[in-house]
């Protein structure tokens, strides 16, 4: 294991989408207990720097592993099908139509109840897309298919943020 190891190797967990969050949390703390710069505060500047590199690397891996969307994107990349969201924006027409309908519904929503209902719809769509990701990555090993799901999830996440912002505006 070294600084170039992938996130799964570093955390000593199987390279798959399905993960036990409690295990990731525990592993993160165990690793930081070993590598955190505080462990080496009395050992000089060079030791501090190396400890910081390890600690940063462990935090980076944890951020990615604990977030299902980031984890799925990372697995696609490791599997040779990077998501490339910035230059691959083509989505199925049906999906885009759905997005537009939701955007309109959000613009028209004027009370907390309507917004909450929309929030629930998006949450369900996210859950379904994540379940598909799990099946494509862990069972079918179809990384290109999973990458398409990840791109859909990124749209959903953006929309979910808009819903939250709208809810905040109404709440104040």
């Amino acid at each position, binding site marked *: 294991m*070294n600084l170039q190891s992938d996130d799964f190797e570093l955390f000593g967990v199987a390279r798959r989408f399905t993960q036990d969050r409690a295990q990731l949390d525990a592993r993160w703390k165990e690793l930081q*207990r*070993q590598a955190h710069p*505080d462990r080496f505060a*009395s050992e000089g500047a060079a*030791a501090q720097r190396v400890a910081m590199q390890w*600690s*940063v690397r462990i*935090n980076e891996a944890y*951020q990615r592993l604990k977030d299902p969307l980031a984890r799925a994107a990372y697995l696609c990349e490791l599997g040779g099908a990077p998501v490339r969201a910035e230059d691959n924006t083509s989505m199925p027409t049906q999906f885009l139509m759905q997005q537009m309908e939701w955007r309109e519904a959000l613009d028209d929503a004027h009370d907390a109840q309507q917004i909450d209902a929309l929030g629930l719809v998006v949450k369900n769509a996210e859950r379904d897309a994540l379940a598909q990701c799990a099946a494509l990555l862990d069972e079918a090993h179809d990384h290109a298919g999973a990458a398409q799901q990840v791109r859909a999830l990124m749209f959903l996440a953006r929309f979910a943020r808009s819903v939250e912002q709208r809810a905040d505006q109404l709440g104040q």
Partner: protein
Amino acid sequence: MALLQISEPGQSPKPHQRRLAVGIDLGTTHSLVAAVRNGVAECLPDAQGRVLLPSVVRYPQGGGRQIGYDAVPYLQQDAANTIASVKRFMGRGRGDIAAADKLPYALEHGEDLEAHGSAAGMLRIATAQGAKSPVEVSAEILATLRQRAEDSFDDELYGAVITVPAYFDDAQRQATKDAARLAGIDVLRLINEPTAAAIAYGLDNASEGVYAVYDLGGGTFDISILHLAQGVFEVLATGGDSALGGDDYDAALADWVLAQTGTLLANPSDKGAARVAARQCKEALTASETAAFNADLSSASVHFDVKLSDFDAATAPLTARSLAVVRRVLRDARLTPAEIKGVVMVGGATRMPQVQRAVADFFGQQPLTNLNPDEVVALGAAVQANQLAGNAGAEDLLLLDVIPLSLGLETMGGLVERIISRNETIPTAKAQDFTTFKDGQTALAIHVVQGERDLVQDCRSLARFELRGIPPMTAGAARIRVTFTVDADGLLSVNAREQTSGVEARIDVKPSYGLSDEEITRMLQEGFATASEDMRARAVAEARVDAERLLAATASALAADGDLLEPPERANIDLRMRELDSARTGSDAAAIEAAIQALAASTEAFAAERMNRSIHDALAGKRIDTL
């Protein structure tokens, strides 16, 4: 754990030979120093038995300084030269200070306003001894506490953990670290005040679960949500207001009384008197329903009886401001008030009954006030300092803190591109690729800002970086990877590398509100609370200690991991060790320093190799254990 104990007998202190490491709470109103003695953290008193040091520094006409209780009487008598609450000015520009006209002293721009625009550097305070930077004033307070610690233990200070409000931005943290440097203190770590309080509280009560720390100090407000489990203090979210504190309650009370009585303040001494009167009245109101506001002003004497309910009404907007922040932070942590197991109250201002009531109502439970709210931060910092110094028998703690404010870059049209989001666990690093806009372009300007807003003008400017030495290429061909690193102190550093050529771009940093290295060097030369005559003797003594420390560390490192070195490297290190060994017997501090630098440089690669080996072994060992 045993795998990581790479300190050898020569390096780690002998049982009776503990390193003096202290926790310092550099507060707006008061400052404290604490240390672990016989396994228990305690605040260190001065010769008169007082643990609090008022954060007040006077620069009288004709020279000298008065610090702490000695300076307090002059808040009224010599208000224009007696600086209180300097913490509110750390890392701040003249334009950042609201109601500067209510202050008894004059604030100046740090740099020429015409030349530098609105971000004209950290402000200066005009005194009879010239313009003082908030960093210099804070250094006087820190040097006084350092002296107190060294007198208490009759020992040299090894290092200190200094606390800062969790919500302090990069400029405020850097200013605090610079102040410690001026005071000759080695900063082991900057830690956040609520986190320090959680350490003291958690260890005392063996607490596990999710806790909120509500920290209302003299000038700053913080709220942190932490998860405590088996010695790990994990911050889930933090937030605050670095310009909200007990001082604002004083000001609101003074304004209310003056409005009721139709009184006007004529001069600095009136302003000082009104503040002192308001503070005394506020403190009296924690124990009774009414209290007198007594101020002798130049025009008249003001005597007014203030009811607690009037004080509540006059300050309700301030308390509400703090609760709005609490609400946002809970949302960031994705928690509800009911999920919080306990609320720890920190900071003298949490003694106000209306604050305790508001917090109890919000969380639906009585807040925890069993630890002294003035001392708890310094005590927690002392525990952490003891551990960082590697003293035997120290607690086995792990602090996983977060960055309080997002970091971003200015992009086209004055928009902010977010690089590191708030509440990310530190240390953390993010890389961003840039390219050139014109053919043959060899330099690139980067503006780093901190804050949550989308427009650059609504965020705080941290620094401007200029990357130079990019190899000339056609437009868009260069790939410049800029890496932003936030270290365990919460401080940002930036480095850049051109990817195709591997050229390390040079970075010129222009901090928006910081001090340059030259300014700090000049201030160091001017000398601080330590008298200038023994500065030289002290420098030699310190250099010798450093030399001995480094020689012992190197010898034990060679004994443990000498096999990592090739013979020529080994020969070079041996030579540098001999050179340092002979330099340290002399009385030339600069020569000893130079030999230290030379040895440190020659062992740099070796130290990195050793660390990689030990961390690798530790992680691998752990893995075998857990599988």
